């Protein structure tokens, strides 16, 4: 390292910040250094770089221990075993850091300008974030979390996709936890819609769970998003790391949307953090017969004042103040849309049509005849190719070709050979 030119303070400050960032990353990588230990060390010894300097010096562990014991205010003392490991890490700091970089992971410290501003405001924000992807993704004018159960119903998955896509199209950052089910659907839909999404994972980057979402994580990063963690890459996810992770999800956003959650779902924990951190909380209601929605319904009953209801995707965007930016690809002109059967009753304002997505006919109007008849058939409740062929009376080959076109446009999605309206489909659920 060349000595800094006199007066070149900015460059020197940068270097100090970089050294400190690296030192923090090394410290956090040490087994046994949790938030409390880290705070204790920093409070008694100084900056992270100072800690490593003392550790690397002669008799490192003893010096660290002495300094920590003398100054530790209320008895949070670092154990000897941990101190030994810190000394060891201080000696192999370069290996640890280069390993991290090789895995495409870089470090963001709380002091860095790129550290997300929203996250700074929470209680005990993570000192460092391990980031895979672009820092820029973490900061957005609007950031919304979409979370929920790992075992959703088909409808829940669909809601998650539609919400994720609508948020992305409205220019909001979609944040979630990369879990199976609701989380994954929201991430994937945001990417599909051309938006940015950030996944906060519960373990280290080297221990990504679920493994099934390996490729999804890569796709998120490839599309300008990021996967972040407060844990060093080697950290194994455990029962305890996921609830802690949830506070970061809510901390990164303005509002948390829970799509489906059973009574004991971790998604409700994220919602609880959101309220604690002064974020908004929205819950998608569901049937009282569906265990997947029991948690959401319980919250809507118990926290009626603060927990808000998701009455539809356009309504949600309006409630979030995103409606102005949201553009419906084929929104019908007001008045041109046929009545859906809503009757104005005295004292009740009829729902505003433009708040619902395009109607079946509006979507069908923009499509060639073959695809239009398939959309109408889907709206009558047909879900399989057999049923679609029976309703449309098209030959099976035409049904299949038409579905390819519709799927390519996002109007329909398919799972296990059943078809439903997708993120660009009409807002009226089939059947």
């Amino acid at each position, binding site marked *: 390292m060349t000595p800094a030119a006199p007066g070149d303070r900015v460059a020197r400050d940068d270097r100090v910040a970089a050294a400190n960032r690296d030192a923090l990353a090394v410290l956090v990588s040490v087994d046994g250094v949790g938030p409390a230990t880290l705070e204790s060390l920093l409070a008694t010894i100084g900056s992270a770089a100072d800690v490593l300097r003392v550790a690397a010096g002669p008799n490192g562990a003893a010096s660290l221990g002495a300094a920590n014991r003398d100054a530790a205010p209320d008895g949070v003392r670092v154990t000897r075993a941990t101190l030994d490991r810190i000394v060891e890490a201080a000696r192999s700091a370069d290996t640890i850091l280069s390993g991290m970089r090789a895995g495409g992971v870089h470090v963001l410290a709380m002091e860095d300008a790129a550290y997300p501003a929203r996250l700074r405001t929470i209680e005990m924000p993570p000192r460092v974030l391990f980031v895979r992807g672009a820092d820029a993704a973490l900061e957005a004018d609007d950031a919304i979390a979409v979370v929920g159960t790992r075992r959703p119903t088909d409808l829940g998955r669909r809601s998650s*996709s539609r919400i994720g896509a609508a948020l992305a199209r409205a220019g909001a950052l979609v944040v979630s936890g990369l879990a199976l089910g609701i989380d*994954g659907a929201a991430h994937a839909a945001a990417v599909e819609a051309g938006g940015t999404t950030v996944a906060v994972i519960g373990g280290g980057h080297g221990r990504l769970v679920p493994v099934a979402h390996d490729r*999804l994580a890569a796709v998120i990063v490839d599309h300008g998003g990021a996967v972040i963690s407060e844990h060093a890459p080697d950290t194994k996810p455990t029962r305890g790391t996921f609830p802690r992770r949830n506070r970061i999800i809510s901390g990164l956003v303005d509002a948390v949307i829970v799509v489906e959650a059973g009574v004991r779902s971790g998604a409700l924990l994220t919602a609880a953090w959101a309220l604690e951190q002064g974020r908004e909380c929205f819950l998608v209601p569901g049937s009282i017969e569906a265990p997947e929605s029991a948690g959401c319904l319980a919250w809507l009953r118990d926290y009626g004042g603060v927990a808000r209801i998701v009455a539809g995707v356009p309504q949600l965007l309006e409630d979030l103040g995103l409606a102005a930016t949201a553009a419906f690809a084929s929104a019908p002109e007001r008045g041109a849309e046929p009545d859906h059967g809503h009757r104005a009753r005295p004292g009740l304002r009829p729902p505003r049509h433009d708040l619902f997505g395009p109607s079946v006919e509006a979507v069908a109007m923009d499509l060639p005849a073959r695809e239009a008849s398939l959309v109408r058939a889907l709206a009558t409740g047909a879900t399989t190719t057999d049923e679609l062929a029976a309703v449309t009376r098209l030959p099976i080959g035409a049904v299949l070709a038409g579905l390819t076109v519709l799927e390519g446009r996002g109007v329909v999605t398919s799972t296990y050979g059943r078809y439903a309206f997708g993120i660009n489909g009409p807002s009226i659920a089939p059947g």
Partner: protein
Amino acid sequence: MLATLVSATLLGLEGRPIRVEVDVASGLPGFTIVGLADAALRESRERVRGAVRNAGFVFPARRITVNLSPADLPKAGASVDLAIAVGMLMGSEQFRPAPGRIALIGELGLGGDVRRVPGLLPMLASLASHGIHRAIVPADSLLEANLVRSIESIGCRTLDEAVGQLRARRRASPTAPARVALADAAIAADPLGAAAVGSIGTGGRSREAATPDISEVRGQAEARRALEIGLSGGHGIIFIGPPGGGKTLLARTIPGLVPALGDDAALAATIVASASGEGPIVGLVRTPPFRAPHHTSSYAAMVGGGPGLAPGEVTRADNGTLFLDELPEFDRDVLEALRQPLEDGRVTIARAARSVTFPASFQLVAAMNPCRCGNAGVRKCECPRGAPDRYMNRISGPLRDRIDIWVWMPGISAASIVNGIEPESSRVVAARIAAARKIQTDRSSGLLNARVTGHALREICGLGRVERIRAIALADGERMSGRGTDRLLRVARTIADLEGASRVQVVHLEEAARWRAPATRSPLALAG
């Protein structure tokens, strides 16, 4: 006294002539067989002993040595029983044969009866190429033996009858029907084309009796369409759906949908059937084989092997269909072993001493549940989280690449069974398949679309500008690999052939795109 006779053994799918030397000499009574005989052949001693005595001859109380030559060729099976017994009778001078070289093939029962052996057809073929023109064969197998035109075969039921034949040197056996030359047999066996196939399966129990008609599959129009396309172009197909959706029934209709085998293919199929010991063979096998090995099948059962290097299921399915039900439940090794045959149309079994190559050009048809519990997509899936993905991932990438058509079959609703359009019969579908295949083989010098690759594939597709853009969008937009694009084009070409269209059109591409492999779909498909 020394007697020398000719017989044959089976090695893989090939016959090998064997010289059988029997020496009956004075000395301590004994019976020794030398010349790399396997277990079945060593036990020949006991069969010959019983057969000779019970047929009314005398088992000589002398020193009997049987030498099977060539000495270094491992010999398997009981096909030389008859030659050993006859040689012993000649060696002990119990009868004197008329002059002339004649081969003897057959297994002996303890009562002196001559029984069928597997592989008679290839054995006789090898004898013919070694200049043998007459053979005594089991009477049961005479129709099979008569497929080899250059050998005059005489059917015998017992050892006694065989001895009588050798003594008398009559020109033809009284039990032999008029000989039919191989080429004639091909025509005689199939005078009415495909329609007559049912009457000449292997044996009286015609295989067609068990083949359901495709009209019995209710609903599932997409899967029926996919099967028709797959069979037309020789594309590998997989049906994915919950139990009870008709996957297996659909696969079992295949023998009724594919055209009868041509002469060369029929001869190859007959040789495989003969070597595998499949029932009595009464003529050329015209029905394309349909093999459905269970998912517990071992590596050797699938690929071939064992002491006699016997052909495995992939070879027995040559020129026909290999149906693998519950694909992910097969052992990984067994599935990986399918890669070579799927790529090259043959399989090589290498052992320390020697290696053999068997034909193994088959149409792959597979079926699987969407997950282990089978409920995904119908009811609530009871698998642990992530398990459905892992279940799908048991099918390795290279094997996925060999499957052109992926069909998702949702469970069928009662409504679609009752209201559905009356499905077409196998006869109607088979006619379309045959026509589409003819277009392909005429165009690509005998190849079906599934075997056409690279430049030739793009040439036969004849994509115009619009079609080219659409193909790129369908392949590119979905992050398809080069192989994925080829698969899309191949299937589209077959769809066009079924319509008789000379060029691939956008609608063909769009239909083909419906059956892309699951991993090549949009990011939405990545979310578990």
